């Protein structure tokens, strides 16, 4: 073995599937002087890769995860380590069958072959299954199993062949040095290496390694139990590693996967069992390996019975030869952790990644490090997405405990967390609680989604409830009623979760201009709504900026994007210190006042002239209400006249009280985020970051390109100019649902979002870049009496009046293109808002 070098361009810590994939892709992208370090031996250093089940079910409701998995499967295939065997998710309950119908929609979205199958058809594919306990299943012919250790070796060999990589096995990391917030060197038991970049790809040990540099990687090692049962004659006689489809027994949270002559039975049904990264035994001290811990059989016993029930013929005779509590990584929201750590520059995370998404994620990390952003949007995997509260061990464990048993669970797209609630409370929380607010979580905040006290409005406006429990879940007809009350009179919206950054300093104008697409060099007191782009011209953020002084800009962004946006801004701050960033989120609270009566209401509280001439749309002014110092911003995400009212957090309660009290005479209604974030927004066709806006789409496609492009350079400008020159590959459209009646059971159904938009007869629609058309947001348009869907469509389909279909629960419903582009379907001229 060669000596430890003293310098490297990048040190990659970890030689599991993730670290190997990262070094392989970095080398391919031109990086040299890569040093890879692992404490264990090669090719199996003892991490989670070494005991993984190695199978890939590519279908996932989540687009990002589905794309990472598909890319990984292609890479495994290209390396010759992918064995396609097919897989079946079986259903024992009707609720699960419905979920499998929903899987069909996701399979259609991401172009994966899938078939609903009967118990008899399952038995034909898997002759030893007891079809009597099943009511059906979903068969995915492309499910495969891979050799992840061999793939890792191939990645390393390729990098070594390019003379780009030196791998140091049996080498322990002792410390990571930083200098002024930037990673500097890695200290090992064999010496010190100075490195420009360090990537932590250490799976369950990642938090421990990150802490050496003062950074956080919020994951917990957790147990996944599996046993290996054999020998089984029918499997032995097959003479193959995998002769039968892999079974996911979804309702019991288990799987059965052939491994040559025996059957591996795995479970996600047991109690959550967590370990600390500091207490995982070393390779030498562990009985098997550090991540193959002693099997706690009491936790698995209940699963033996359900496994026996499903495969009695083969499992009753075979012996349990191997049983482990295998360690894997869990994160608070069950997504990977990739990207630069928020605490230390050039210290990257590539953690909480499972076998099925390993190579794809490795590619994304390498592209991100090379090009400034990966090709696949890593929005939901970005390690920067967590607020500080969500990086605590307490939060990580609570959330992981809650979602562990949902690994094979049926999770509603609107489902709310039960644990770790009431951690961030708005200054007006006691008021909204009194009004019967039903809270949804937004960036850890409790945000009213609707108010039970508004239930009389449902009859008043004649709002119809939804017939199907799934469509009604995490929804209320009160939302639509609040919507109509706001459009009729005036609504108050608690917007405390808004994220607020103040930028000041002599370099601030140049800096803000460099970050934004739209011209931010506006007069003091004016605002600009603008995307931020990645270098390749896709959406990185979408936010509003107020100019509060010549050298003072205030950025307001959404609760779901705050930490990611802050990291993006922070990493681009000029190194000379000429711009300061201050997070003012906790200093101010925001109350939205919108509706035809908004001006009358607020004007009745002040002598300050609020007329259209004195306080035009898009402007901001400081106004005192009595002794409350407020800042009003005339803007609206719901398309109504009114303001965002910013006050010091401690004045939030008093301000709400005054608006509520005075508002009584103007017919004020408390309005939840169901209106603010969905119905009001959809009627106006406003785009949402993470839903419509992602880095794979550009402002031209999203209908957000302005007539002119500013002179100032900005990130993504070149790509943006190019996009403006060509016909967009897709156009973001608003569609209306033309018929809600289910062909199957004749009741009205309401999509929840992420369903495929197809040709009328169900044909998949993709644009010339290969991107599928699917619903980015779905919701009611109460003022229009229509159900609205946003979706990107290729130009040939993005024609007003064009009839298409939406595929919901494996059934087709007619939809019609109402608007191609960003023109609102409701009040297209914005008269209500700007008048």
């Amino acid at each position, binding site marked *: 073995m060669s000596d430890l070098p003293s310098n490297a361009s990048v040190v990659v810590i970890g030689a599991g599937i993730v670290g190997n994939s990262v070094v392989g892709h970095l080398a391919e992208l031109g990086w040299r002087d890569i040093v890879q370090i692992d404490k264990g031996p090669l090719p199996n250093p003892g991490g989670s890769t070494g005991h993984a089940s190695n199978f890939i079910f590519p279908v996932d409701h989540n687009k990002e995860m589905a794309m990472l998995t598909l890319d990984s499967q292609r890479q495994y295939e290209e390396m010759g380590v992918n064995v396609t065997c097919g897989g079946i998710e079986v259903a024992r309950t009707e609720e699960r069958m419905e979920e499998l119908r929903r899987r069909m929609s996701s399979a259609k979205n991401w172009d994966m072959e899938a078939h609903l199958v009967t118990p008899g058809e399952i038995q034909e594919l898997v002759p030893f299954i007891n079809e009597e306990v099943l009511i059906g299943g979903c068969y995915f012919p492309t499910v495969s199993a891979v050799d992840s250790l061999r793939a890792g070796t191939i990645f390393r060999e390729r990098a070594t062949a390019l003379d780009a990589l030196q791998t140091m096995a049996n080498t322990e990391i002792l410390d990571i040095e930083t200098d002024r917030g930037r990673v500097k060197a890695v200290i090992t038991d064999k010496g010190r290496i100075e490195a420009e970049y360090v990537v932590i790809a250490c799976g369950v040990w990642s938090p421990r390694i990150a802490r050496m540099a003062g950074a956080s990687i919020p994951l917990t090692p957790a147990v996944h139990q599996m046993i290996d*049962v054999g020998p089984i004659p029918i499997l032995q006689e097959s003479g193959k590693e995998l002769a039968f489809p892999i079974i996911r027994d979804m309702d019991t949270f288990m799987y059965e996967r052939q491994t040559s002559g025996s059957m591996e039975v795995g479970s996600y049904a047991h109690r959550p069992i967590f370990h600390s990264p500091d*207490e*995982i*035994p*070393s*390779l*030498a*001290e*562990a*009985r*098997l390996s550090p991540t193959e*811990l*002693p*099997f706690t*059989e009491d936790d698995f*016993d209940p699963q*033996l*019975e359900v*496994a*026996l029930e499903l495969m009695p013929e083969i*499992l*009753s*005779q*075979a*012996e*349990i*030869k191997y049983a482990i509590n295998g360690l894997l990584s869990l994160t608070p929201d069950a997504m990977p952790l990739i990207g630069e750590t928020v605490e230390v520059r050039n210290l990257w995370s590539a953690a909480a990644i499972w076998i099925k998404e390993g190579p794809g994620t490795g590619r994304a990390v390498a592209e991100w490090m090379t090009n400034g952003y990966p090709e696949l949007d890593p929005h939901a995997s970005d390690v920067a997405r967590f607020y500080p509260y969500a990086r605590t061990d307490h939060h990580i464990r609570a959330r992981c405990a809650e979602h562990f048993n949902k690994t094979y669970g049926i999770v509603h797209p609107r489902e709310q967390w039960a644990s770790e609630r009431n951690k961030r409370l708005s200054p007006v929380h006691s008021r909204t609680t009194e009004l019967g607010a039903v809270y949804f979580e937004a960036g850890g905040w409790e945000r009213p989604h609707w108010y039970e006290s508004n239930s009389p409005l449902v009859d008043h406006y004649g709002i119809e409830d939804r017939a199907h429990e799934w469509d009604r879940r995490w929804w209320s007809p009160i939302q639509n009623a609040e919507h109509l009350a706001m459009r009729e009179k005036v609504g108050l919206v608690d917007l405390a979760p808004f994220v607020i950054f103040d930028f000041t300093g002599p370099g601030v104008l140049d800096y803000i201009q460099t970050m934004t697409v739209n011209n931010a060099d506006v007069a003091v007191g004016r605002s600009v709504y603008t995307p931020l782009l990645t270098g390749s011209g896709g959406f990185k953020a979408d936010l509003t900026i107020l100019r509060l002084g010549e050298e003072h800009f205030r950025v307001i962004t959404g609760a779901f994007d705050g930490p990611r946006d802050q990291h993006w801004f922070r990493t681009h701050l000029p190194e000379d210190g000429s711009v300061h960033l201050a997070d003012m989120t906790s200093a101010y609270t925001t109350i939205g006042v919108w509706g035809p009566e908004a001006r009358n209401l607020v004007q009745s509280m002040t002598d300050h002239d609020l007329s259209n001439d004195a306080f035009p749309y898009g402007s901001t002014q400081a106004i005192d209400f009595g002794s409350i110092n407020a800042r009003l911003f005339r803007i609206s995400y719901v398309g109504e006249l009114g303001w965002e009212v910013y006050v010091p957090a401690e004045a939030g309660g008093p301000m709400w009280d005054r608006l509520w009290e005075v508002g009584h005479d103007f017919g004020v209604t408390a309005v939840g985020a169901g209106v603010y974030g969905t119905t009001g927004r959809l009627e106006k066709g406003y785009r949402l970051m993470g839903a419509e806006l992602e880095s794979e789409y550009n402002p031209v496609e999203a209908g957000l390109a302005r007539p002119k492009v500013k002179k100032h350079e900005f990130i993504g400008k070149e790509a943006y100019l190019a996009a403006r020159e060509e016909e967009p590959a897709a156009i973001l459209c608003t569609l209306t649902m033309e018929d809600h009646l289910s062909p199957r059971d004749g009741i009205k159904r309401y999509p929840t979002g992420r369903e495929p938009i197809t040709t009328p007869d169900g044909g998949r629609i993709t644009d010339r870049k290969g991107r599928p058309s699917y619903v980015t947001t779905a919701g009611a348009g109460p003022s229009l009496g229509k159900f609205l869907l946003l979706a990107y469509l290729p130009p040939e389909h993005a024609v007003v009046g064009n009839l298409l279909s939406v595929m919901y629960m494996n059934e087709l419903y007619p939809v019609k293109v109402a608007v191609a582009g960003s023109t609102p379907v409701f009040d297209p001229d914005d008269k209500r808002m700007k008048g």
Partner: protein
Amino acid sequence: MRILVCVKRVPAPGARIALTDDRQAVDARHLPFTVSPHEECAVEEAVRIKEGHGGTVVVMTLGPAEAEEQLRYAISTGADEAVLLATDGSEWDPQATAAALAGGIESLELAGGPFDLVLFGNESADAGGYQVGIRVAHALGRPVISGIKGIELEGATLIARRETDAGFEVYHLPLPAVVAVKEGINLPRYPTLPSRLKAKKAEVASSRPTGQPGGLAMLRLDTPLEVASSTTILGQGPEAAPAVADLLEDLGLL
């Protein structure tokens, strides 16, 4: 045949054995527990004899409540009954252990009739005292043989084979007898799913052992110094030949 097998719950360490800070025990926080491989074979041998000749297999241990895990495992691999002589976790030296086991055997025999055969593993995996089986046999006044790698039954005679460098020693023992077996006498089976479920529901009889813990006292545990070995690569392919020749010469082999 009525057969008793005595086993001991022990941690199953990895390559390096970690000790607790006070050096009074193996640090078993992350270790599974098991019985010694010899004892696994003893249970398997008892089950095979039962399968060939009929009868019952009782498995017994002196140990903490957690040792139920090892008893249930024995049931899942074919034992019929389990008896726990429950301790509070304190150390019992080989003499005290043998006395407690002999006491346990006597009460079992009073209740259910004599055992034709009492099997032990040759030595425990942790203490390795090599004596508990012999002491129990002595207490019971029965013949005993240890280091056994083959058992056959001919009527009331047990034929035991012990491996030596030259071949096998063959012993004939009148039953009832005590035999300590060695790993390699058989290849123990693993539990099946149904047998594991059955073992989970099986009853484990628990009683207090006769006698007192103690006897020999442990001062502390020490890990032996690790002898590091190093490898020198003399070269690769034909180029390595001169270096190999030199080395052989240095060693006086040429």
